[in-house]
């Protein structure tokens, strides 16, 4: 084995790959060879570092130097300066946007300071395509401990005691779920990993599979041991080619090392894992729908009970957990339930991964202890609102969640608090909105998503959401009435109360939470015909400021509908009844004389 003196960790997550991190890696390899250091410095493609805003990321170890926004052109400089001469390349260091101080080590960055990485522990740390790196960092020792030292009952008890709850949305206690499945008697049982991440703005499951696929494999095997299943299935989005490829590699390696297959670690426990592909249906995040999809059918949910733990895949008892939930299992087994339950709040233990996005400075993937406040996440980790704008709202829980205001910024984040606040944990999307975002449009955006993704099986979701969307459209088109606001609320409640599955039962949340928290914006649309954020096109008015207008006639000539009139060298005028709000005049005006009102 070559003893490398230095490691160059290059982020291989999808975001960074999109920014040519593959090229960066190859450049490093070639250029190291040129200077004859290929045996001293190892170049490793890791999983996501999380700090996507600043990607591509390159980390130099053991110097612990964190380079951001690296381009393929920067590699030679890093080699010549840092590797050869031991000098940091200052212009690639992260600059704190507030203090303007350059920071070398990631742990000193606000983005990382408050993070606690359990599920993401190996992401950005190990090479996901090398099982030995995983083993080197304690990998498969939890499985080993289970097989040699723990009975299924005692392992499940550890999970129960840890307080781990499902990270996919609902927050059902994981240990309890395992225990229920264990108690159902059947020759054949299944462990299913739900990797069909569908929330449009959450990508933690993919990052884990890309950055640390073995943790999922290990956890599924542990689950199999605990519930008495020898077969596992990973249901993964076909749109995640990189995660699929990494998972496949990991499965092959695990088999080669005997960590999957017959008689694992010399025990009488055998376990195999197969991959199943999702095909683009958000509703398949619901476990019964997921199971139907794995069976080759339309991914429609069915009424529970029977629960999958009783009758799941092919009618057999099946335990379904999502990727992030599984990623928490091995550390709990190795470090103990007490360690895990010491993190977090009373009813929500451990950490949660969030995909932080939207109008925020530090977009990325973060893992924080339960109980952290939204303020800490948004202002400390997230670095505050982009371009110095005003914070308006943060949306959590994706299409099932709600939009929270300033008032909730100091609420500790956990399952129950978010629910009480009218939102939910969901899979962990966290989208920050600023003063320019129209909350009615945001609600409409989510409804459009739900509408697209509703399976259509039950009436409230199929037709109810369509009607909700139509009402919202009416409002953003400036045709809403006060009565529509009442209708929105009443229909939302019925849909929540009577839909078949979680998708329908939560689909009105974005509407209800915006009605609760941003009623004034709805009222402005309905009563005053105004969109306070200036986003709803139909409610905009292009107006010419007389003082600034030089009468150049450029707007007049560019208006496609002849709505502008005026004499040359005299202020022009826009006839609002004719204006189609195309914005052509606004774009053309050279004197900033046209304002949006």
């Amino acid at each position, binding site marked *: 084995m070559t003893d490398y003196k230095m490691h160059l960790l290059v982020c291989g997550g999808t975001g960074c790959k999109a920014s040519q991190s593959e090229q960066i890696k190859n450049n490093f390899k070639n250029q190291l060879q040129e200077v004859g250091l290929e045996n001293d410095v190892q170049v490793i493609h890791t999983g996501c570092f999380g700090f996507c805003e600043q990607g591509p990321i390159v980390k130099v170890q053991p110097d612990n130097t964190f380079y951001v926004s690296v381009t393929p052109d920067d590699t030679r400089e890093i080699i010549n300066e840092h590797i050869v001469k031991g000098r940091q390349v200052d212009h690639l260091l992260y600059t704190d946007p507030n203090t303007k101080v350059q920071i070398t080590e990631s742990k000193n960055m606000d983005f990382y300071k408050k993070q606690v990485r359990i599920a993401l522990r190996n992401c950005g740390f190990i090479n996901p395509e090398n099982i030995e790196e995983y083993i080197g960092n304690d990998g498969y020792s939890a499985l080993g401990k289970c097989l040699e030292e723990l009975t299924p009952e005692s392992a499940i008890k550890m999970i129960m005691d840890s307080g781990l709850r499902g990270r996919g949305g609902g927050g059902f206690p994981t240990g309890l779920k395992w225990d229920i499945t264990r108690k159902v008697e059947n020759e054949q049982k299944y462990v299913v990993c739900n990797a069909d991440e569908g929330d449009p*703005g959450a990508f933690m499951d993919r990052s884990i599979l890309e950055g640390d696929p073995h943790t999922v494999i290990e956890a599924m095997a542990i689950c199999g041991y605990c519930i008495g299943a020898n077969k596992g299935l990973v249901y993964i989005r076909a749109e995640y080619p990189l995660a699929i490829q990494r998972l496949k590699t990991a499965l092959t390696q695990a088999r080669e090392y005997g960590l999957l297959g017959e008689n694992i670690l010399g025990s009488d426990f055998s376990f195999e894992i197969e991959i199943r592909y999702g095909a683009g249906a958000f509703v398949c995040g619901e476990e019964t729908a997921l199971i139907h999809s794995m069976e080759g059918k339309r991914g429609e949910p069915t009424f529970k009970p029977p629960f999958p733990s009783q009758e799941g895949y092919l009618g057999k008892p099946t335990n379904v957990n999502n990727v992030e939930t599984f990623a928490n299992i091995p550390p709990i087994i190795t470090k103990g339930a007490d360690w895990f339950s010491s993190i977090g709040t009373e009813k929500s233990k451990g950490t949660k991964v969030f995909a932080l996005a939207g109008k925020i400075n530090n977009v990325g993937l973060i893992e924080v202890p339960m109980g952290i406040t939204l303020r800490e996440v948004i202002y400390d980790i997230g670095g505050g609102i982009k371009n110095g704008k005003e914070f308006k709202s943060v949306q959590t829980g994706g299409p099932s969640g709600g939009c929270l205001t300033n008032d909730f910024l100091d609420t500790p984040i956990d399952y129950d608090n978010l629910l009480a606040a009218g939102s939910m944990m969901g899979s962990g999307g966290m989208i920050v909105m600023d003063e320019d975002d129209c909350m009615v449009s945001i609600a409409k955006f989510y409804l459009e998503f739900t509408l697209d993704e509703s399976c259509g099986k039950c009436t409230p979701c199929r037709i109810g959401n369509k009607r909700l969307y139509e009402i919202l459209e009416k409002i953003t088109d400036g045709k809403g009435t006060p009565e529509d606001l009442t209708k929105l609320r009443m229909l939302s409640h019925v849909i929540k109360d009577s839909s078949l599955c979680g998708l329908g039962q939560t689909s009105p949340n974005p509407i209800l939470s915006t009605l609760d928290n941003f009623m004034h914006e709805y009222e402005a649309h309905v009563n005053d015909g105004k969109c306070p954020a200036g986003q709803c096109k139909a409610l905009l008015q292009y107006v010419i400021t007389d003082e600034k207008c030089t009468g150049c006639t450029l707007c007049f000539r560019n208006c496609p509908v002849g709505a502008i009139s005026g004499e040359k060298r005299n202020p022009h005028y826009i006839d609002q009844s004719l204006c189609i709000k195309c914005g052509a005049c606004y774009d053309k005006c050279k004197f900033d004389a046209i304002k949006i009102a």
Partner: protein
Amino acid sequence: MPKIKLAENTINQIKEICAQFDNQEGELINVLHQVQNKLGYLPAEVQEVIAKELKMSLAKVYGVVTFYSFFTMLPQGEHPISICMGTACYVRGAEQVLTEFKRQLNIEVGQTSPDGKFSLSSLRCVGACGLAPVVTVGEKVYGRVSPQQVSKIIAEYQQGCPSEAKSA
């Protein structure tokens, strides 16, 4: 029933894929994935072959194909353009970018341009939220796209095609 008018070797390819999955009805989605991978889309005739091989109802095959947004019955353009409409991209202006693509290509989402060069689709979160709004053309990802950049992106593919942008 309409008679199948596919080329002999296409039919054989499909049959081979079905056989790989033991002609099991439960493997329908896997079969559809592989066939679409090979042929680019799943026209009616292809579904007929699959239904026959898996000994299942054609209506059920069609029911599955129309349920999942990943499956398409229309051939894709030479350069499939996808605009990410995930929330992060949406709040950073993806809709305006999509509108611009629609306007410039003069096609709607789900359509292919008459010359077969471009097809347009929207997708939910490619996971490059740091680069929002994101557009993919084939396998190439464009980050922080503004409506103003749209014409430049289209132009890249209109004269010949850049080698790295060739779709898979």
